């Protein structure tokens, strides 16, 4: 008997309505789901279905109109990674990675040690004193990932983190992210537009419906770990891809 896994994040009846001068947008409606601790979950859905909005709510950037969410861990800090690396161009790699702990006013040597470890983890040793403009897209996104881990959040929120990378870099980064996830034992919620990326990386894929977004489908991915690139050619993989594609087509057809 395995005990039921500890819940890391629960979202209940979340609703977000934006209203401004240009009108009212019903972005999320009655959205509920749970994530067990250390789950790798991806969020997929039509453009404008409120994926970024959900992440922004969880990051505390947008107040929900209705409903609630809970982080069941010791602190409610999240690590945030955007589609663009979003680095500070005036800060070197180490300084960018250090930012979250600088804001927490930690002692310098502690910050430096932690930054050093994370830069090593994402494979950027030797680039500590480079400026963002000297980094490739993949390297810059690695810095962003290291930064998001700096304050040791329990939950990582990634909004299409590999969206602006070429296909090959994207696959490499996916494998690296899995390694980091395995090493750090985080709960991950990542937005992606790629069905195969979602299956390859995840324990669970959440499909969001057409706006206003709600959970259309929760698909458990029970492929063995560690994931290997060859798994993309397994029949189970394609059957999962079929289910996701159908679900996405259904929600898009409804509009």
């Amino acid at each position: 008997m395995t005990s039921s896994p500890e819940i890391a994040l629960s979202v209940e009846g979340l609703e977000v309505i934006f209203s401004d001068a240009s009108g009212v947008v019903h972005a999320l409606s009655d959205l509920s789901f749970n994530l067990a601790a250390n789950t790798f979950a991806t969020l997929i859905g039509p453009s404008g279905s409120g994926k970024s909005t959900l992440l922004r709510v969880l990051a505390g950037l947008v107040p929900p109109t209705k409903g609630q969410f809970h982080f069941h861990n010791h602190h409610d800090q999240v690590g945030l990674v955007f589609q663009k690396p979003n680095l500070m161009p005036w800060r070197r790699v180490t300084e960018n990675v250090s930012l979250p702990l600088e804001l927490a006013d930690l002692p310098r040597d502690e910050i430096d040690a932690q930054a050093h470890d994370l830069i090593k983890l994402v494979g950027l040793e030797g680039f500590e004193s480079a400026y963002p403009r000297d980094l490739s897209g993949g390297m810059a996104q690695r810095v962003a990932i290291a930064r998001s881990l700096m304050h040791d959040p329990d939950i990582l929120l990634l909004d299409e983190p590999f969206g602006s990378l070429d296909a090959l870099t994207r696959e490499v980064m996916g494998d690296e992210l899995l390694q980091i996830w395995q090493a750090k034992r985080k709960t991950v919620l990542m937005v992606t537009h790629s069905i195969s990326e979602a299956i390859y990386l995840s324990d669970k894929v959440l499909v969001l419906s057409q706006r206003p977004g709600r959970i259309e489908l929760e698909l458990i991915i029970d492929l063995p770990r560690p994931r290997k690139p060859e798994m993309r050619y397994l029949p189970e993989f394609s059957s999962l891809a079929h289910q996701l594609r159908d679900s996405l087509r259904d929600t898009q057809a409804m509009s």
Partner: protein
Amino acid sequence: MSAAGSISKLHKARPLKRILILFLSLVIGILIWSAAASIFDLPAFILPGPGLVWERFLRSLESGQLLQHSLATLSEVLAGLFLGGSVATVLGYLIAKSPALENLISPYLVASQSIPIVAIAPLLVIWFGSGIFSKILICSLTVFFPVLINTVVGLREVPQDLRDLMRSLKASRFQTLTKLEIPAALPIFLGGLRVGATLSVIGAVVGELVGADRGLGFLINVGRGQYDTALVFVAVITLAVIAMSLYGLVLLIETQVLSWQSWRDEAK
């Protein structure tokens, strides 16, 4: 603006080449000037040749006259730059933070900008006397607008994603200011300060021409009154040197503080 553009383009050239070009253009300018003076055979009170002006320069340097008036103008310029610059920076920050304040103030700002400083300078001299204070006020007013605008624009251009990042990390208002807003707005802010520095020199001279007992503008008036055109030339050239030095100083600060920017690499 085009002058500023070509100066910064010059700045991007290699140092040795840059110095050579400057030197060459200086030599050519002086040659044309002295040729014009001798070919047209103009009297010295209309166009004194370079030699005459040089002589006058040495004389005014020796008597201490030039230094005294230069220092007077320079201190007005710097005081105005500091006063106008700091008020504009603080107000710019507040405006960038509060649209309500912007709506309240912007009509006055636009109106004040449509009045040339030459037109208000006499008023300020009437109200505050012909001493240094009215000049500092005039300088402050000329510096005020470019610094204010660039502070507001600089703060507005801070990327929203970075603001979101700071917010998700629970940064305080002060941390957001020091770790995000100041460094992000600095390039545009310093651009405003650079323009303000040159305008401040113009402000000081305008004030001194209207009514003063010292300064390079005053010296120009004296030279004109005594048909001492060489002295006018000396004062004008000194003014140009002061304005260019200030411009260069801010540019130097920019290249030091903004070393992370790529435009500096092109200069290497």
